[in-house]
């Protein structure tokens, strides 16, 4: 301990003098390290934003392939174990889950207010763009009342059905219950939506469309869709096959299409809509580009640091020689050299950390727009806006500290690796070391 403190007493002022007097070299080192840490932190920041957003999308929209067989065909062949076994052997398919759902058909989309459809006495389903407004205006005013379950929200992604007409009718005829899923067809994709609750009408809602009074059979959902469930609802026996990667969906679909099975009895659908696929692909391409840029950046930045360190070492070697000829202990000389390098590194870390800590951990609109470009005008805008807050909070912590720690760690690793290599080489070749 005494030896260490004695060494620090000797080495610290000398190293400080060398750094302060050799201003150009010191400033060059500081600038290089600062730029390296900061730019690496910026890279990581973007990477984390992209990754977090992708994970959110992936968790919200799992990659699945859905096989459907109608109940009416119950007497025909079922999804056999052999078939399931065959499908499970398809690359990227990991597991399966058998569920039941009702078939429904998307008939329109809209944005404002309650939409209505009543064709040939079929059961109308209405979807709300702004679920909170509608809840306020109808449920809070007491016109409608929740009978069972819960309100739909972005998390459960479900729907609320009319208990008096829709829910009870379905209940009696089709055994609809809360948590039962409705399979909605949206373009060429199918999305399952759970029934999360039922409501009843306390005071009739006077609603006119084209001067025609409308029925009160509304379904509240947190999406911008209108789904018409046919009166002749058909229960389906479904089987989901989960994929290990969202990006393998198209490939898996192609593979499945090539399988020989009874296409007339079964149909299968990818779980992801075109928008989600486009978004995920967009993020994936962005991440690939980031990785490539990162590799190039690593090579260049590591090269720059190594060149700087090597140049500094060659300059300092002359000082080492002088120290050696003056009889200075090897430990002090090596310690002084390490101290110089680490001092430059440490001082460069300070503004980098201040920069990271003082920066608002907010994702800029530009960045968000770039990430979500395919969707900003699409049907997932609402989802995007809701997820934005989640994204902000998810990334905030990463931006301020984890990112800077990783960036600092990266530069430190480069320095330590360099010092180790120099140490090994000089231990064998430098005469000043041993004499």
């Amino acid at each position, binding site marked *: 301990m005494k030896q260490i403190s004695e060494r620090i007493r000797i080495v610290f002022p000398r190293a400080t003098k060398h750094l302060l007097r050799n201003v150009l070299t010191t400033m060059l080192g500081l600038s290089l390290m600062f730029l390296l840490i900061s730019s690496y932190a910026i890279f990581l920041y973007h990477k984390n934003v992209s990754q977090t957003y992708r994970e959110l999308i992936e968790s919200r929209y799992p990659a699945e392939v859905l096989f459907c067989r109608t109940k009416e065909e119950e007497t025909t062949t079922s999804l056999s174990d052999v078939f399931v076994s065959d499908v499970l052997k398809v690359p990227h398919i990991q597991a399966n889950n058998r569920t039941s759902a009702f078939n429904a058909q998307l008939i329109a989309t809209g944005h404002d207010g309650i939409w209505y459809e009543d064709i040939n006495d079929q059961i109308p389903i209405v979807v709300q763009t702004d679920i909170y407004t509608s809840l306020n205006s109808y449920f809070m005013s007491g016109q409608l009342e929740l009978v069972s379950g819960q309100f739909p929200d972005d998390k459960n992604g479900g729907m609320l059905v009319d208990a008096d007409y829709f829910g009870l009718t379905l209940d009696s005829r089709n055994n609809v219950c809360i948590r039962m899923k409705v399979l909605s067809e949206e373009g060429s994709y199918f999305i399952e939506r759970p029934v999360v609750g039922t409501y009843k009408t306390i005071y009739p809602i006077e609603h006119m469309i084209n001067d025609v009074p409308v029925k009160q059979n509304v379904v509240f959902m947190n999406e911008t869709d209108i789904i018409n469930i046919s009166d002749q609802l058909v229960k389906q026996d479904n089987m989901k096959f989960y994929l290990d990667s969202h990006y393998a969906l198209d490939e898996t679909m192609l593979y499945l299409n090539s399988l020989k099975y009874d296409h007339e009895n079964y149909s299968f659908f990818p779980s992801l809509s075109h928008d989600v696929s486009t978004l995920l692909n967009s993020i994936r391409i962005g991440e690939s580009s980031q990785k490539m840029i990162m590799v190039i950046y690593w090579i260049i930045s590591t090269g720059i640091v190594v060149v700087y360190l090597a140049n500094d070492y060659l300059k300092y070697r002359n000082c080492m020689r002088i120290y050696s000829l003056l*009889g200075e202990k090897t430990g002090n000389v090596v310690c002084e050299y390490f101290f110089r390098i680490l001092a430059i590194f440490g001082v460069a870390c300070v503004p980098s950390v201040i920069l990271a800590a003082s920066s608002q951990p907010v994702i800029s609109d530009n960045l968000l727009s770039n990430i979500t470009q395919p969707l900003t005008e699409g049907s997932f805008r609402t989802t995007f806006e809701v997820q934005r807050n989640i994204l902000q909070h998810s990334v905030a912590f990463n931006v301020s500290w984890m990112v800077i720690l990783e960036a600092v760690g990266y530069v430190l690793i480069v320095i330590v690796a360099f010092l180790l290599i120099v140490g090994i080489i000089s231990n064998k070749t430098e005469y000043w070391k041993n004499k």
Partner: protein
Amino acid sequence: MIDIKNVSFSYDRKRSILQGVSVSFSQGKTYSIFGPSGSGKSTLLALMGGIITPDSGEIWINDHNIANLDGRLIRRTMVSYIFQDYLLFPFLTAQENVEIAREISNPHENNGGEKTRKLLNELGINESLLRKQVRYLSGGEQQRVGIARALVTGNPVLLADEPTGNLDKATANDVMQLLIKLTKEYNKCCIIVTHSEMIRSQTDYSLLLDNGCLKQVETNLK
């Protein structure tokens, strides 16, 4: 003071640089070693400073066989070097350069700063030059700083390798006179490797080294 006993040395075990050199150096005396290039003059200095070790023979300094000592310890406590190219820290001031050498040799010495300043003043480095980075000093001034650095350590032996090789004649003469004067004043043993006749004439003894062998010893002492 220094006894070199039958020392031989070769760098690659093939070409012999020194062959059985034996010589003694005494405290308070100045010595010049001269001879053609490649005769082993600088090698002899390196051996005395513990930078290299002899293939055979012994070197004793103050009754210590330096073969048993660490080279850095020898340079820290027994011998100090003065170089042709000065070998100073270019970004440090004259005073700081000397201070570092003093701290290495005598880390716990009191009033070291005052001693350094006084010594530099004696060598003609005035107060304004003291605070200048040595890279801004002239060759003669830098060599004076080099001499001060060697003297400040308190080591009994000064080894100077062509100390005036980079200086003009007048400056070289000034520097040499100072070196010899202070050597006597501080009671050191000063060994100078040189090609200069002027230096040879100013030292107490001159040794001719030729082909690794000590051929001749002359004295200027009356």
